[in-house]
């Protein structure tokens, strides 16, 4: 039941970052083990990338100008908390290498009959591979095949439950393969955390089924620093019902072949948002959120409904030809030319995560790297996470390959195996399923850690989570002791991680006394670039969370305001 395996590099997570890291490391001659909690190419955040930011530069000069524009955009996209040196490098990659890399993989960047790339017109900020809503899924399908083709060692439906250390260095991990009911003790010279966004902590979230913020907790428990995890941002134009369709994005980005964008209407039938209100910004997610907040405050919308997306003004041919979303209208008997679709917000991306070095993806714990959305470098985005995967693999190849394997602390490994096997019980017979406890946690987070936060609400959230710890954990049990696809077993591990992650995010949120980007506090409704252009950093010391701040380095772009009302700033 317990298998011991060894690899040069353990990559945890199979999205754009993890898959790219695995492929790059393998091609550089490293022995890779890729562990994916879901199915490679079918789970996680990368599959949701709907549109890709596009650049058509015809000269170096145009390229420099475009890069400058992108940096301005990214400054706002990361609410000025992004690592700007990293942003510049990943932007160069995005502009100069990413598109060729996509096409070389065999992706089809949507063209028209004449052969021109289909973009929004006239600003040409977006392109698709080859359908709006499916660009990420298509890329991940290709990457899956690339991994399988190289016969890279792959464990799917396997969750890493703990990192193993030796003298403070990360030297491996323990993982639970819940498809087969087996436990792995893995030894590796380098461990890359590429677990993506940790957003499935709330009732409404774009996290896929298996998401549970394990990445944050694994890093935190190993002593790594977390940074800005309070900066949870919410996707506004997702679907209210049915529940299964919660993750359906009705993006505010410009559409193919036009400059039209989806519009938002409130409960009174008034249009309160159109991305074209911000023509310079093709990805106006935060401004969208602020406009919604106004509507909620005025009683004309709620966060879980009462506002609607309209495509009524959009050419139906565009809707039918190039959008993944349109069919969902038709499935419910709706006509996008006539009907609206009710929305609700979801926990989506986050600029925070594990603090990492933007050049090497190293965390402050030796042997542990963070790549992709789990790192605190940027809010996310397919080109950036792919860049991370590439960089981390190259760095590991140069610096770690020749190092010897270190034996993990056997006490630690055994303790983790015991923890997992102790969870494998159906007692007490009338107890709650882990999935139900996860539901309880997510309800608490929706209630107390939504977009509208306050000191009181968050303290109540902590108290409710504590109650769950005290009451629900004791009578939590699995529904079956079958070893085949025992999701209950991994859910039981996730419950613990979720409680830890939720507590962490609340404490980080209590600490930041301002509002910024997707982070809004009713008790501190200003964006304070004088006192709070800071990273909030937390790590575990003596078993307790220790929080501090570190000033942000504004190397290339700066916010326009010093202190301003939250609604005044456009990021």
């Amino acid at each position, binding site marked *: 039941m317990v298998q011991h395996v060894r690899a040069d590099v353990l990559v945890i997570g199979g999205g754009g970052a993890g898959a790219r890291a695995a492929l790059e490391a393998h091609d550089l001659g490293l022995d890779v083990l890729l562990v994916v909690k879901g199915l490679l190419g079918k789970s996680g955040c990368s599959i949701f990338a709907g549109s890709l930011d596009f650049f058509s530069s015809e000269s170096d000069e145009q390229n420099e100008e475009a890069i400058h524009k992108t940096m301005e955009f990214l400054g706002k996209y990361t609410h000025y908390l992004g690592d700007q040196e990293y942003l510049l490098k990943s932007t160069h990659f995005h502009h100069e290498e990413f598109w060729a890399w996509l*096409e070389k993989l065999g992706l*089809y960047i949507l063209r*028209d*009959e004449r052969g021109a790339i289909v973009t929004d017109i006239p600003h040409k900020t977006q392109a698709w591979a080859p359908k709006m809503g499916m660009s990420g*899924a298509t890329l991940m399908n290709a990457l899956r095949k690339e991994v399988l083709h190289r016969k890279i060692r792959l464990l799917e439906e396997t969750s890493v439950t703990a990192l193993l250390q030796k003298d403070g260095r990360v030297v491996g991990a323990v993982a639970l393969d819940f498809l087969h009911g087996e436990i792995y003790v893995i030894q590796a010279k380098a461990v890359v955390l590429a677990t993506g966004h940790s957003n499935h902590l709330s009732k409404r979230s774009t996290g896929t089924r298996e998401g549970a913020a394990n990445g944050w907790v694994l890093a935190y428990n190993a002593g790594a620093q977390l940074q800005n995890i309070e900066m949870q941002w919410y996707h506004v134009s997702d679907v209210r019902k049915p529940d299964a369709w919660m993750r359906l994005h009705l993006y505010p980005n410009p559409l193919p072949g036009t400059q039209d964008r989806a519009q938002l209407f409130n409960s009174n039938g008034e249009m309160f948002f159109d991305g074209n209100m911000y023509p310079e910004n093709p990805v106006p997610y935060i401004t969208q959120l602020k406009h919604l907040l106004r509507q909620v405050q005025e009683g004309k919308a709620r966060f879980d409904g009462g506002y609607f997306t309209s495509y009524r003004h959009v050419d139906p041919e565009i809707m039918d030809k190039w959008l993944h979303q349109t069919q969902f209208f038709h499935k419910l008997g709706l006509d996008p030319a006539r009907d609206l679709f009710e929305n609700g917000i979801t926990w989506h991306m986050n600029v925070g995560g594990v603090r990492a070095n933007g050049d090497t993806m190293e965390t402050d714990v030796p042997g542990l790297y963070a790549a992709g959305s789990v790192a605190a470098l940027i809010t996310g985005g397919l080109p950036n996470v792919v860049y991370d995967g590439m960089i981390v693999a190259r760095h590991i190849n140069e610096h770690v390959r020749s190092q010897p394997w270190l034996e993990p602390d056997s006490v630690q490994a055994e303790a983790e195996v015991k923890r997992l096997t102790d969870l494998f019980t159906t007692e007490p017979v009338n107890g709650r399923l882990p999935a139900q406890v996860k539901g309880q946690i997510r309800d608490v987070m929706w209630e107390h850690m939504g977009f509208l936060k306050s000191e009181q609400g968050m303290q109540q959230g902590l108290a409710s989570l504590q109650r769950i710890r005290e009451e629900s954990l004791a009578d939590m049990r699995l*529904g079956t002791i079958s070893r*085949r696809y025992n*999701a209950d077993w991994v859910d039981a591990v996730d419950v613990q991680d979720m409680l830890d992650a939720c507590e962490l995010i609340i404490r980080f949120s209590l600490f930041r006394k301002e509002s910024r980007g997707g982070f809004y506090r009713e008790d501190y409704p200003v964006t304070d670039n004088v006192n709070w252009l800071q990273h909030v950093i937390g790590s575990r010391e003596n078993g307790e969370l220790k929080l501090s701040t570190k000033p942000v380095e504004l190397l290339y772009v700066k916010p326009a305001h010093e202190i301003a009302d939250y609604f005044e700033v456009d990021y």
Partner: protein
Amino acid sequence: MTDNEFVRAKIFRFAPDIDDAPRYETFEVSHEPNMRVLDVLERIIHEQGQSLAYRWFCGVKKCGACGVQVNGRPVLACWEPAEPEMVIEPLPNHQIVRDLVVDRQDFDARTMSLDPLLKRKEPYPGFPEPLTATEMAPAAEMMDCIECLLCTSMCPAYGEKFAGPAALVQLAKTALDPRDGGPRAGTAYEVGHIAECVSCYECTQACPTDIRVLEHAIDGLRRQIVAQDIGDVAHHHHVYRDLTVRQGLVSPVTLMLRSKGWRVLSELPHAIVLVIRGRLLLKGLIDGLLNRNRMRNVEELDVIARALQEDQT
């Protein structure tokens, strides 16, 4: 259905490692307008504390992981509406892992054995490469495939040899791509055993993303096989076209004789039985052998065929 009514779901349960035999369990959950099958499954777990194994990730028809059988039809649980009475079972043709979860590794193996990754005819010229929507349209249709396995689950020819429609769609994705120069037809024939496809349209019927699996993926590969003269499939097609033009109404005897060549001898015992029993008239057999069946104005077909060819040039 209104709110406050119930959905009754009879669900297949089987844990091969601890159960002696499969069974069905019935659950009732409250109904909500526009509920999907997936919502029902989730309610069974969350509201009733019943553990049930099923796969899903995205809920919005991108990941292709949630395929199940509902009332005898293959569906995506996230896509299809819940019905008041449902029998929910795992997808057929696949090994059951537990309850509604089926093995996908066999599909992976078959797909990768077809070596489906793009093999460029010419070295990549740099971004953006010259491509038009028209020339990419056939491959773009295949790019809608989310590998949900509904088509393969319904395929009656899927077995030891035949790779199945889903794997062939992945092959067709590059076979129909104008940039590709790989040996796709040969692979479809020799590794994919595409000749075993019975053209029953179960795959097209099952596809939730409206890919015309048989007409575009499988027939697309067949077209390449015919154009490259590969195997008995190409030969059969050449014979059929020829006989259509010569005979108009195709005689099965002539067809079999010319398609199978000397292999038709293996049909001889059967032919004898058919003649003895009167199913196959001796006259018909002889006419067929001597290629004497002809439609009355059969030469019109040749005129038409030539006219079409000339029109093209």
